[in-house]
């Protein structure tokens, strides 16, 4: 299998603070789904920021889909980000645009034709169960619907890698489980998925490796049960 993410002895320190990430090395293979857990402040979000090029590592190398992020120039960051599907705890939907228009944004940025946009957006909304809500505005949606809309926006471009940072943070357990099932469905058709969440209870029955971040150090080979024990 080819790797889609490779971290090699990566460390990250913010000015005036201790290291948030310490000597992190790991590889995510193409088509793999990995669940990253750990308590708040463990460095999960920092790790995501490094992959999304929202921050640069203090040390080490990061290669994503063949691109060495350490050497990516500022002007090339937009082109790199267009390869990713990003999902955050805050859905980051634009309130004055309809669900359809929000989901269509990445395609507009890429310059797709109107017909292609319509076809892809409807497919993405169908995949997340929002096909009947495309004319609604984000404030009219529930928290779960908003997060599903943001997932539709992330997958509408058919990215090779989907990154989700605390995607269920604002959702009730039933809705959170539904969102996790969505990630599994995308992974089943070949999308690499990296999900970060401190809610280890979500993955009891999910067939994916669990990696645990603790005080900036990564511990491989955990299971949902051992990670839950470690979180106390």
């Amino acid at each position, binding site marked *: 299998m080819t790797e889609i993410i490779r971290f090699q002895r990566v460390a990250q320190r913010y000015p005036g603070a201790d290291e948030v990430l310490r000597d992190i090395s790991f590889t995510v293979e193409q088509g793999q789904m990995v669940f990253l857990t750990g308590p708040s402040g463990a460095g999960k979000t920092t790790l995501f920021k490094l992959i999304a090029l929202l921050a640069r590592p203090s040390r080490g190398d990061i290669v994503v889909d063949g691109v060495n992020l350490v050497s990516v120039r500022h002007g090339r960051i937009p082109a790199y980000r267009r390869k990713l599907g990003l999902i955050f705890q805050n859905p980051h939907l634009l309130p004055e645009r309809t669900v359809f228009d929000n989901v269509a944004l990445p395609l507009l*940025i890429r*310059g797709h034709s109107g017909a*292609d946009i319509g076809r892809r957006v409807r497919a993405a909304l169908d995949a997340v169960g929002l096909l009947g809500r495309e004319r609604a505005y984000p404030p009219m949606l529930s928290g779960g619907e908003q997060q599903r809309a943001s997932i539709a926006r992330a997958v509408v471009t058919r990215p090779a890698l989907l990154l989700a940072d605390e995607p269920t943070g604002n959702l009730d357990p039933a809705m959170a489980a539904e969102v996790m099932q969505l990630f599994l469905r995308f992974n089943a058709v070949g999308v690499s998925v990296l999900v970060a969440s401190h809610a280890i209870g979500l993955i009891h029955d999910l067939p994916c490796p669990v990696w645990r971040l603790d005080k900036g150090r990564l511990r491989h080979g955990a299971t949902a049960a051992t990670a839950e024990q470690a979180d106390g």
Partner: protein
Amino acid sequence: MAKVAGRPHSPTPGAPVRWLQDHVRALTETTRRLRVRPAATLLTLLVIGTTLALPASLQALLGNLGAAGRSLGQRSLQITLFIRDSVDQAAGRALAVQLARRPGVATARYVSKDQALAEFKARSQAADALALIDDNPLPASITLELDPGQPRSHAQTLEQQLAGLPEIERAHIDAAWIDRLYALANLLQRAVWLLAAALAVTVLIVVGNTIRLDIENRREETVVLKLLGAPNGYVRRPFLYMGLCYGAGGALLAWALVAAGMAVLARPVSELAGLYHSDFALQGLSLRDAGLFFACALALGWCGAFVTVSQHLRHIEPS
């Protein structure tokens, strides 16, 4: 699912179509945003429009001043040739007939010494003084009226040529007042350019400040677009179109203000021209000036937006 996650089949149209689509979308989105807040948009356009209207109206007035000068100048562009005393009346009249045949000359009128004295007595309050002099001191003359539309340079050339004739003592173009008018117009033209430069800076500041506020209002949208991988050109484009819209709207408003001003002044100016036996009529901005003015307004709007967007957008990054 496969429809969403499969490989792209027909991702983008050709580059020119894509470019056009992107720009049409940006322009549509910009005009939508301007319509959403009509009061603020109108206020900004009024500020820009009135600022642009001042140099535009002065330019129009200058154009009219030039036209008035040409109109009156063409009507009265005359060359007076003073004939030597040694030339008798018959020779003088023959010379007038000969000069009237020259190209560019409409009429040639011979005025004998006696006619000149009679006309002087009729017009001048100093006529009584001439009674004290035995001889008639006034020379005979030929007054040439040039064809309408003859340039001033032609009149000067003709004046120099005729001054060299053996019968002619002195030649004179009666157009000093036109020279003064043109000198005044030249001075005003420079003042208008200076004023226009100062007001252009004002327009840049107004557009820049308005765009800056818009950038702040759309900070969240900018962050989302950058997270989604929008290139700088894509993020910047709606703001540049907004600058262009302000420039175009301001220019249209200024043109309307100038046209309204000209309409108000047209009648009194026409009456004034009538007093000088001229059919001069006030005109608005010429097509050339209007085109230049519109292009300048668009350039100002775009530049104001570009400078502001370049300064502020780079500080808005997702974190």
